[in-house]
């Protein structure tokens, strides 16, 4: 090794040292440690005994776990496609030639930077059956609104509405995608007799497909981590009648309320594997149809 190379090796390691320490301390060790803990009967205060796969088999028989998984998937399956659709529609609208686009863009974007706790508190007021604005609006058109967050049948739809309100960040990403579509392609398609719908289907969508895949995969991973809104709105209980008990919340309860840390880490690994598996399936199916010809 020349002197220059040795110098570079030394400087490289010095500059990257924060990340190397962070990697070992905040990721590598924690991942190994949580995997190990998931095979033990550890609690918050004791390290417990090795119990093999007991935690994992207990999970299979845990009704609350299954229900929390079901609720998580329900919210994900509705809010993700709807969020992507709304974000895409907004992006396409903002890509039209209209005055004041930047004002509209700000309006759609701002909800996504409102702190989640404030988001939850504000919506609890919007959804309040007695004092809330939503049922007052519905009442004005002759609809008797439900009790939303207090009604087991309507609590999840209410959470989905809150999630869709925060699509601003996704909209900005998709807007960048729409603006990447070359304008000549639209003109050529039009001269070939393609209508609005067909141009969207054969020009816009293929060019946007990498962005949409990105939205789908990051949305999936985030969906399995869904926690804060429910925690704030139900004081950490997943009420009413367990209808909003999501996996993230049940995991938190096991860790910091029941102190069953071994059990909770097993649940974390199951969730992680499910999220990863879903992401792989999406890549294998939807990912195949993505067009990377643009940008």
């Amino acid at each position, binding site marked *: 090794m020349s002197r220059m190379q040795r110098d570079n090796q030394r400087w*490289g390691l010095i*500059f990257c040292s*924060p*990340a*190397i320490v*962070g*990697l070992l*301390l905040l*990721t590598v060790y*924690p*991942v190994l*440690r*949580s995997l190990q803990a998931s095979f033990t009967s550890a609690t918050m205060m004791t390290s417990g005994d090795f119990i093999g796969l007991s935690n994992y088999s207990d999970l299979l028989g845990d009704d609350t776990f299954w229900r929390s998984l079901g609720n998580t998937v329900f919210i994900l399956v509705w809010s993700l496609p709807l969020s992507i659709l709304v974000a895409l529609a*907004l992006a396409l*609208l903002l*890509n039209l030639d*209209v*005055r004041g686009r930047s004002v509209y863009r*700000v*309006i759609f974007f*701002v*909800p996504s*930077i*409102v*702190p989640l*706790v*404030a988001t939850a*508190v*504000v*919506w*609890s*007021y*919007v959804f*309040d059956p007695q*004092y809330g*604005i939503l049922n*007052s609006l519905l009442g004005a058109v002759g609809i008797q609104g439900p009790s939303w967050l207090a009604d087991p049948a309507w609590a999840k739809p209410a959470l989905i509405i809150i999630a869709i*309100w925060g699509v601003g960040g996704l909209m*900005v*990403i998709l807007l960048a995608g729409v603006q990447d579509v070359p*304008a*000549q*392609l*639209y*003109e*050529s398609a039009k001269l*070939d007799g393609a209508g609005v719908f067909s*141009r969207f289907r054969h020009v816009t969508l293929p060019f946007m497909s990498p962005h949409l895949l990105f939205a789908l995969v990051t949305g999936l991973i985030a969906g399995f*981590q869904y926690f*804060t809104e429910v*925690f*704030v709105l139900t004081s950490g209980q997943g009420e009413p009648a367990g209808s909003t008990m999501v996996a993230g919340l049940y*995991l938190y309860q096991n*860790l910091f309320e029941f102190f069953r840390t071994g059990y909770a*880490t097993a649940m*974390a690994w199951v*969730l*992680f594997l499910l*999220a*990863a598996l879903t992401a792989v399936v999406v890549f294998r199916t939807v990912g195949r149809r993505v067009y990377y010809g643009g940008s």
Partner: protein
Amino acid sequence: MSIVPRTAAGATVEPPGRTDRRTADGRVVGTPRRQRRWTWLLTALAKHATLIGLSVIFLIPLVWMVTGAFKTAADLNASPTVWFPDQITFDNFTQAAQLFPLARYFFNTAVICIFSMVGAVASSAMVGYGLARIEWRGRTALFVVILATTMVPFYVTMLPVFEIWRAVGLTNTWLPLILPQFLGVPIYIFLLRQFLMSLPKELSESARIDGANEWQIFTRVTLPLIKPALVAVGLFQFLASWNDFLGPLIYLSDARLYTVSLGLNFFRGEYSTEFGPLMAVSTLAVVPIVVLFFFAQRTFIEGITLTGVKG
């Protein structure tokens, strides 16, 4: 436009005449002048009507929050609903301040945000530089590993990281919320590395010939050139720390250390139907972030577009 577009059939496209109107999606709008003006007016109207309608829907919760914060008790309970109160009151704010040490929570949050920002910008810039501007063995592998860690969800590492802080006796302090940012934040490292890769190599070379060492090149030559990216990283970290809830929830048990988000959560737990004071506090929690966004709109939007970070 220098390239003349061709259709699939190979015919050249006529460039649009000066009086033709071209919309953003590339359509060239109709020929007879009067008819053209009418269709243009109608489509403009339709577009604005749609956008305004959607804007109203998106704004209702925030308007409801702000007006609620300034409503009297009578207006808050009125039926039918009072949209915009005739009489504005600050009672909700004073009442909230009595129930809830607002100033302290804001101070606490600001301290956490500022130190996290400094840590995230400094460490991510250093690591980004080490990955992009220095040729050493292992840099590609390290970059790949750093990117891979973003795939590990927080709930997998949450407990062991908590155990580490407990072992060194630092739970119930702000350090677990601040110090991790000093160890490089993967998504910012990615962003800054991309920026640094685009700078020409000659920059460092000429400084090196003048006898500068790597650290001097980093601080005096490179950092000034990537200021916009550093600002973006700082803003993102500020937003992330301001909005963080799970971190303070796990680590802070002493009420004097609470952040605004954590305090608001407990406030709602106790007074879930006191909508006046609740909306007053919510308004105060939202305003700093919205003001920050207005001053740095472009940086925000460009940063999101580049990284896909959503705060």
